């Protein structure tokens, strides 16, 4: 009689334990979920605004003379004004009079330490890259981060040639990084001796990106102009 009573009590205890455990886990999960969602929704507008501001500043840097910008999305054949969830976006910069000053394109690729994200500006009239800005980098400080700071390196990007063939289908000479001091052609980037891998990475990133984007942009330029 008594052992079974003890067993009964023990059984009730375990099920009460189980209930307590379940209650605790579910309760805490619910509380945590609530707090996270609250913070996420609360900070979202400001985070997006900050990101948009930072992007605009970067665009102004790579397309000198810009005062307003507009985002265009590529849908496979042509460009239309970018909606909220658009991918494959480029940014067009206009001056005060509404003239198209250039197109800013984002590109990224593997650097030495991690992915490097850049923004470069393209001038369709002159068929040159006219500006370059590193958005995100984790390259080695003092070595790889020279791609952001070295004046001679940055000077490469004020008139980097990305001319297209007559049929507007291909880049005639792909952008490439060469050893420091051996730059001979306008489509070459003079590398940085102490930061070979990082500077070569930039050359690859721009080279690949321009192959895809420059023909697309040059062919559909009219869609992106404002006052003509």
């Amino acid at each position: 009689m008594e052992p079974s009573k003890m067993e009964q009590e023990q059984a009730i205890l375990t099920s009460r334990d189980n209930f307590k455990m379940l209650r605790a886990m579910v309760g805490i999960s619910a509380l945590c979920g609530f707090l996270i969602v609250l913070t996420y929704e609360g900070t979202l507008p400001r985070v997006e605004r900050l990101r948009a501001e930072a992007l605009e500043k970067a665009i102004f840097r790579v397309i000198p003379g810009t005062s307003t910008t507009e985002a265009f999305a590529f849908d496979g054949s042509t460009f239309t004004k970018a909606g909220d969830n658009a991918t494959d976006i480029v940014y067009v910069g206009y001056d005060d009079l509404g003239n198209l000053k250039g197109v800013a394109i984002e590109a990224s690729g593997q650097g030495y330490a991690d992915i490097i994200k850049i923004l470069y500006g393209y001038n369709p009239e002159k068929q040159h890259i006219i500006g370059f800005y590193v958005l995100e980098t984790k390259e080695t400080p003092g070595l790889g981060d020279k791609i952001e700071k070295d004046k001679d390196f940055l000077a490469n990007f004020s008139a980097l040639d990305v001319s297209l063939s007559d049929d507007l289908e291909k880049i005639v000479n792909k952008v490439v990084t060469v050893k420091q001091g051996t730059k001979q052609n306008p489509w070459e980037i003079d590398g940085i001796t102490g930061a070979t891998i990082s500077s070569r990475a930039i050359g690859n990133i721009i080279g690949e990106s321009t192959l895809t984007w420059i023909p697309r942009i040059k062919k559909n330029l009219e869609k992106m102009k404002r006052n003509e």
Partner: protein
Amino acid sequence: MSEVTSHSTEAKVAPSSTDEFIKGLWRENPVFVQVLGMCPVLAVSNTAENALAMGLATAFVLLMSNILVSSLQNFIPKQVRIASYILIIATFVTITDYTIQAISVELHKSLGAFISLIVVNCLILSRAEAFASKNTVGKSIMDALGMGGGFVFALFCLGAVREVMGNGTFFGLSLFPEGFQSWIVMILPAGGFFTLAAWLLIFNLLQQKKSKQ
């Protein structure tokens, strides 16, 4: 005789709230004494600003998690306590991550994935298990503030040294004339190891001197 007995009865009185606070700063400093929470300490301490921001973020998570764990201590049964603590800590880390994004895009980029890694900082889990789950909310707050303060202090020591020697700047302000060739190794990962070893060495020396007195 009476003085001796009064000394021994004083030693048995429970530590006051201020004592909980102070112990975290020096005597039980999480980095220099307990050697906990190492990963972020080394990774993010390459500038004084990053180190400070990381320290404050960790201290914030520690404070909030201590408060929550302490208030819920009777609600959480023993078997699921570690899982609950981890859930709570992860929640506050996520909150901190989004808050930092909302404050400064630059700062968030420099700290990167290491904000999320605060969740595996052994310090926070150890305080929750060893202290907050067994003490009042008030005392837990003091403990968190003390440990958090000690952590920020340690991180700052590391970040300041590494930035000054490795970059010639302090909080971004240049300290040396143009021609100064900084000791780049200090901002590299190796420098992190060396600087921490140096600080620990100094700390050990001080402890040794104190115990000899």
